[in-house]
Structure formats: C-alpha cells, structure tokens
C-alpha cells in the first residue's frame, strides 16, 4: 500500500468519525430539547406552583364538586405554547400520576385558541386531580381539584324523598 493511499484512508476515517460525533451531538441536543417540553410522569403530593398564570381551570368550575357521572370533562385556558397536563392522585403510591386515556396521556401543547380540553373516567369515591400548565421545567402553575363520585343508589334515595314531598 502506498503512503498516499494510506493517508487517504486515514482522512476518510477521520471524516466518518467527525460526522459520527456531529450526529451524536445532534441527537443529544434534540433529546434535551424535547425533555424541556415533556411533563414529568409523576408529581409529589406536595407539589406547588413556581409561577402564576400558566393555567386557569375552566371545567369543572369548582375545585371541589360532586357528581354521579362516570366521566369528567376537563377544560382549561393557558397561554399559547404552554404544555398542559392532567394528573390523578394515586392513593397507593401517594403521588400524582399522569392521566392516560386510551394509551395517550391527557396532555397537549396549547395552540392559538389558548384552550385545553379533555375527558377522563371517574372512579367511585373521591377522585383527586391536578392540572399543570408549564412554560418549561422550572416555570409552571399547578391547580389541584377534587371530584366526589356519589353512588346512584344514594342519589336515588334523595330524589325519592324529594319526590314524595313534592307529590304531597
């Protein structure tokens, strides 16, 4: 093998190495970029807002409410570009976990409408939720809210009593 061809092979090797390093750095940068906008899967029970105004709860209207329904519409408004995520409190784990509906987390980047909407199933008893609007990892607003699911038998008894009174 001549000296020239050996030098050429070295050059090619160097180029490949450079391109590899560049690609790796690019992938690293991309993963860093996406991680900025992904909300954490789990939030501690004691989580508090680091900033105000990144999410406003529209539905349910009250932070504590009762229903006999089996699902809950959730709506919020947030500045454009905010990542809004809904969490449900896990009584077993003692923390808030991302709500997943049909294998997709209840989470989206708010668009020009500045509105967020979703729907989740309810379980009997007290359902504790938290909605988080995040500008980035450090800047976010959280709003906890609760929905108490009454069993229909109990509601029927109340309605029955009211009906009897009205019928008289």
């Amino acid at each position: 093998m001549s000296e020239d061809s050996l030098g050429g092979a070295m050059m090619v090797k160097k180029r490949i190495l450079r391109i590899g390093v560049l690609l790796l750095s690019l992938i690293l940068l991309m993963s860093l970029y996406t991680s900025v906008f992904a909300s954490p899967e789990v939030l501690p029970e004691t989580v508090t807002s680091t900033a105000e105004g990144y999410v406003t709860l529209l539905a349910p209207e009250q932070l504590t409410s009762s229903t006999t329904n089996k699902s809950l519409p959730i709506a919020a408004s947030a500045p454009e570009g905010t990542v809004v995520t809904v969490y449900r409190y896990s009584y077993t784990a003692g923390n808030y976990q991302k709500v997943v509906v049909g294998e997709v987390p209840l989470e989206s980047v708010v668009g020009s409408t500045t509105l967020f909407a979703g729907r989740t199933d309810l379980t009997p008893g007290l359902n504790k939720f938290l909605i988080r609007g995040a500008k980035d990892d450090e800047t976010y607003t959280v709003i906890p809210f609760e929905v108490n699911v009454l069993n229909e038998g109990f509601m029927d008894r109340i309605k029955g009593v009211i009906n009897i009174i009205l019928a008289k």
Partner: protein
Amino acid sequence: MVKKVLKNLTLVCSVLLTVVLVCQIWFSSSFLPGGYDFLISGFKRHVIDPIVSLFNPGVANDFSQNFKTLYRPEKIVVNVFSQRGVFADGQEGFQEAYNTSNDIMGKLLSGELTVKSRETVDMDTYASLLKGKSLYVDYGKNCDYSLFSFNACGQAQTGFSEELSVVRDYVISLHDTIMNDVSIYVKDQKSGNVYRYIVELDKNSLDGKITELINLSPENSFLSYAFELNFHKEKADTVSKILFEPMVLMELNSTKLPAVSGRKLEDFDDNIDDEMMNTILRDFSINTRTMWRYTDLTDARVFVENDATLTLYPNGLLEYVAEDGGPGLDISKGEGGDDIYDAMNHAVDFVTTICGHLPENYFSHLRLQTDMVENTDSQGVYRICFDYLVDGVPVRHKTGDGYAHTIEIEIDNGRLKSYRQYLKFYEKSGEPEISCMAMMNAADLLVDALYKEGEPLWIQRIHLCYVENEAGTLVPQWNATINNQEHIIQE
C-alpha cells in the same frame, strides 16, 4: 274473379301498410319536437296523479313525502347522564331515534298531547338538560315554523305558530319526578326564547326507548358539549380568542373517517345517453328541436335556448343558468308564491323530478342543508342547497372560488334563475380509514386565520365533511360556521 280477389288483397295490403307507416311517423319522436311525452306526462299529471293521490297520499312528487325525506336532523344525541350516544343522519339507529323524537314532536304540535303547562326558561336550563336523561334533536339549520310543523305533523299552522317562528333544535327531557310526564323544550331562534312544554306521556316507555338507543350507539367517551367545558363564556381574567355555541358537541380526540370515492353517472350502466339528456332538457323546458348545442373545448356539452343555457361538464356538474334579466324557468307551474313555504315546495318538487331520472338511491342520500327562513332583504328570492351524504357526512365540492353544495337552486318568485347539481354518486371505497385532525387543532387554525384583536370568533357549528377537490379526490375536513359564514379548514 281471381283478378278481383287480387285487387282486393292489394287494397287491403296498401291500407295496412299506410296504417303502419302513419303509426310509425306519429309515434316516432321526430314528428313533434320532444315526442309525445308531454301528452303522456300531462295526462299523468292532470288525470292519473289526482286520482291516485285520493287513495294514496304518499306517492312520488308529493311535497309532504319528499320534503320529509329531504329535511332531516343532522344528528340526534341520546344523553343518559354522562353517557352519550350520537346518531348522525344515515348511521344505524338514526331512523329509530328520529321516529321516536319526531312522533312526540308531531303529537305535541298537532295537539294530540295534552300540554299541562308552558313556560319560558333560560338558556342555561336548556343546556343543562343535556346532562340528564334526554334526546337532543339538532337539525343544524334554521327552519321556518310552518315548514318545521308541516314536517312533524302535516300542518303548517298550529296552536304554537304565535310563539314559535324559527326552529333549529329541540330537547325531549325525562324528569326525575314520579309524575308520568315529559318536558319538551323548543328554542325559537328568532326571539331567542326557550319554551318548556310539560306533556302527559308514557314516561316508562320513553325511558325504555332511550336505554335501548344508548345501548345501540357506539361508545363516545370523548364527546363534550361546549357548555360543559365553559367554552361558551368569555373568561374574566384572560382574553378569549374563540367562543362556541353552548350546544356545540366537541370531539376531544382525533377521529377517523372511511375513505370515500365518487363515480360519475357515466360510470354506471344507465349512463347519460341522449335519451336521458333529452328528458333532463325537457324538465328545464329546453326544446330539443330548436335549441343550439355544441361541445366546448373543455369537453362540456352545452345546450342553449333563447333565455337559458344548460351545461353538462365533464366532472359531472349539470348547470342551468337563466339569462340575465330573463324570466327564468317557471317551476311554480303558474302558482307563483313568494314565501319560503312556496319556494321550498317548488324547489323540492323540481329536485325530485330531476333526481327521478337518476338511480333511485341518489335521492335518499340528499338532505336539505341551508336555512329555510324568509328572506327579509329580498322577498321571494331564495337560495336552497342540498348535500349528498355518505354515512351522515356531507360531501362538498371544491370550486374555483369556494365549496359548492351538491345541489344549489336560486329561485326568484317561483322562477328558476340557476340550478347546479353534481350528477355523481359517492360511496366508501374500502381503502384504509383517513385520520382527521382533532377539533381543537382545527380551531387553532381558525384563530390563526381569522382572529382580530378584541373580536373573539363565535363558532356556531363545527362538523366534518368530505371535500372533493378538482382532481376528484375526497378528503375529510372540518367545516365551521362563524357569523353565518362557512369556513372549510385546511391542514
């Protein structure tokens, strides 16, 4: 003797030959322009049809029957608390839900049901009914009460005519009480009043029907009314860029629609041959003997007569245009009439006649799509549109300057000024389903395109439709109505 017999035979043969030849000339279409169909159709219209209608009021060309076929709700929503069953026009279960609701409405309007009380309620009460056990019937377009009532009970004027002028939707609600009564809520779109009529009705039977329907409907766990999400109210602390009518049903997830393809009439066995074209020309009162016809450079077949031009384009569009200032075709059969009831009567009859030449199932796919209210700006002038539906989803046609309906008619005091109809059939192609963008993403695009500082967009309705582009491909797109103007949202 033989000579005489031969003479007689020759004479008989000559007479027979004469009779045959005369018959041939008389009954061939070339003797009179248009043949003898006008004699037959005139005889049928003025003699046969009146006699038949005495025994059978539901024959073809009967306005009531045809109007009922064309004027149907866009969707019926069965609400059982948070469970929701949506029946779009054409879907399985729709007819059953429609029969149930229309029967109750018909009995209310005709006075068959005893109204125990009537009162007005506010809009919040009207919307909140949808959280309970109820049937929400949404026509998606405003309709003059006379037509609405005629459709429900066969009477244009009833005891409700004074308080109801324009109807778009209504709710039949079951009470939570032990009383055997049901509430029917109707919103008058003109005054904005919502009327509540409490009627005596077999509540258990209706309850059973609603349960039956909800079990029949596909699971829809991602549907919410705009009022449930508070998307109908301006927010106190932030700027609202978009607001929705409270009863707009919002699909919170991205959806899929079946792939659909269109076929021109030529692709069928009964293609547009000269005979069918002549029949259509006669319906437009164009004399096939005296008209001027040619095929233009785009391959469109053009038929011109004194006051009008009829064109059949290669893409299946049939277009009739009366000359500017010309009288236009009298489709009122001399009856005239300048109100919406008459205009609708004439339009429905005319569309039925044209569609009568097409395969039967074409007509059953059509639905009236525009508001059917008096035109106060120009009395007697109406634009009436019909859409072709595939599984309840309307098809729209991309044109140079917008999106056309399948049939568009312009009437001026009983006279046809223009008529456009796509002579095409649409059906599922069997190809994989097409993903549609989520409704909220479509709303984002609307804000990007139309929002002006301080003027929130007010979405009156938003629904999916198929748009047929100029190449003949059908793509599902969102169609939103803002300030009575339609906007098709492109990705």
